[in-house]
């Protein structure tokens, strides 16, 4: 009931930015526009959703959606145990949305991960650099149009020789 009231309240307050509200496997999903994510989450946090359980992204290339990418925020209310999923959609040509690092410190590394693997940038993030791939890595491998076996990164290394003779240990078999 609490969640229903909150959803109604938020939908009225941000009527332009809320795209849809759906229900999946007992969890409420709030679909919103990317640019207003900070304001919406700020309200949700002040209403009891104190805990950012997860922050990730989805590439809707084949699945379809309001936009190409959605950044997904899983919120948890410790007070009554309710959960809420917020999906913020960002377009393909300018995948950019405000950072929520100011609300939850944990978003720092998770936004870096989303940036590393999806190429979505976060405005106001204090240190938006790659977190898992090497710093000189090109591309964003979790995008659906990135080939699974990569673009030759795994073949791109100098060959280290033993630098001392060539037949060591293999004189006879």
């Amino acid at each position, binding site marked *: 009931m609490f969640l229903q009231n909150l959803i109604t309240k938020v939908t009225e307050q941000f009527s332009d930015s809320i795209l849809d509200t759906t229900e999946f496997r007992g969890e409420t999903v709030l679909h919103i526009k990317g640019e207003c994510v900070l304001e919406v989450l700020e309200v949700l946090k002040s209403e009891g959703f104190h805990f950012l359980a997860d922050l990730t992204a989805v590439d809707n290339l084949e699945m379809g959606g309001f936009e190409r990418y959605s950044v997904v925020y899983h919120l948890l209310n410790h007070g009554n145990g309710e959960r809420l999923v917020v999906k913020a959609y960002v377009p393909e040509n300018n995948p950019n949305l405000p950072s929520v690092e100011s609300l939850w410190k944990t978003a720092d590394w998770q936004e870096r991960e989303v940036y590393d693997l999806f190429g979505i940038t976060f405005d106001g993030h204090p240190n938006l650099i790659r977190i898992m791939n090497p710093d000189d890595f090109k591309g964003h491998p979790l995008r659906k149009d990135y080939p699974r076996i990569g673009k030759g990164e795994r073949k791109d290394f100098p060959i280290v020789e033993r*630098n*001392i003779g060539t037949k*060591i*240990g293999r004189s006879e078999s």
Partner: protein
Amino acid sequence: MDRREIKSNFLTTTVESAVNWARKNSLWPMPFGTACCGVELMAVLAARSDIARFGAEAIRFSPRQSDLLIVAGRITIKMMPVLQRIYQQMPEPKWVISMGACASSGGVFDTYSVIQGIDQFIPVDIYIPGCPPRPEGILDGLIKLQKLIEKEKFSDYSLPNSS
């Protein structure tokens, strides 16, 4: 000293085989355990398999003190430069064991970030199959490596430009 005494007190051999005998029975491994194989490697050190029976129990975590690099686990594109640096830091003579399917071929991880076999980029002497290899397999690999070391010649160690 009479002849009988000489016979029972001296042993004749070549320097080469004496050195190789010492080398093969005192391998100091440097474990490069990046995944589940690394955990399996620890089992070989424990009492049941006891790699100490083959003189290779002195695990060194510094490449400068070891002569056997055991690569146990998948190597990612971020880890490969580290592995190469560690290999280059090891003093001669040195050998490399590629342990498990991942180190030898990438295993099931046919993705952009996993090296499909470390032997593309560093020299490997022994490959141990398995996912993970059983301790017996690792011991078998070690014994095979000892057989290789036995047959090494000093002349093999000529510097590439010296001949």
